[in-house]
């Protein structure tokens, strides 16, 4: 039973990691490319790390190292994505979206 859960988590992690990088390689502008790695890849690595935590907890002692790495990744991924988006806006990279209408002043 545990073996099936582990295999599922490992394959799901690999698949999500692959989908994230596929998005990074295939999407057409920077702002949409930002979505792939920051969401799908983080989820994939989270799956792999949880699989590793379960795998190394089957003996006598529970293993918490992976939880630490998972927490760290889940905290830092949005921060770095925000900084990259800010840098891209600062450099005025081309976007596929239309420019927003200028706001009317009352």
């Amino acid at each position, binding site marked *: 039973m545990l073996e099936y859960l582990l295999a599922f988590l490992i394959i799901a992690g690999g698949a999500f*990691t692959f989908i994230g990088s596929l998005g990074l*390689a295939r999407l057409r502008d920077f702002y949409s490319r930002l979505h792939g790695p920051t969401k799908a890849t983080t989820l994939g690595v989270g799956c792999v790390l949880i699989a590793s935590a379960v795998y*190394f907890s089957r003996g006598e002692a529970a293993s918490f190292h992976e939880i630490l790495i998972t927490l760290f990744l889940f905290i830092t991924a949005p921060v770095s994505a925000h900084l*990259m988006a800010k840098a891209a806006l600062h*450099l005025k990279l081309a976007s596929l979206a239309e420019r927003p209408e200028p706001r009317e002043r009352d």
Partner: protein
Amino acid sequence: MIDTALTIAFTLVGLAVALSFWRLLRGPDAPDRILALDTLYVNTIALLVLFGIQIDSNLYFEAALLIALMGFVGTVALCKYLLRGDIIE
């Protein structure tokens, strides 16, 4: 069962590393390259953890944690450089 799953996951993560590397080489602008580097280090963590499961050793968590820390600091420093032209003001 787990061995088959590990082989499939290694293949998928290896393909992911290749795709991010392609974006790193090709990326038209600097933020694309930073994003590709960010993805590369997250993929490397996945590879290390999978390798740790395969050889049944928990020596690699510290390496993965260090890569996560240093990768985050590197991404922040590169973005800061693009934003301000300087890292520490």
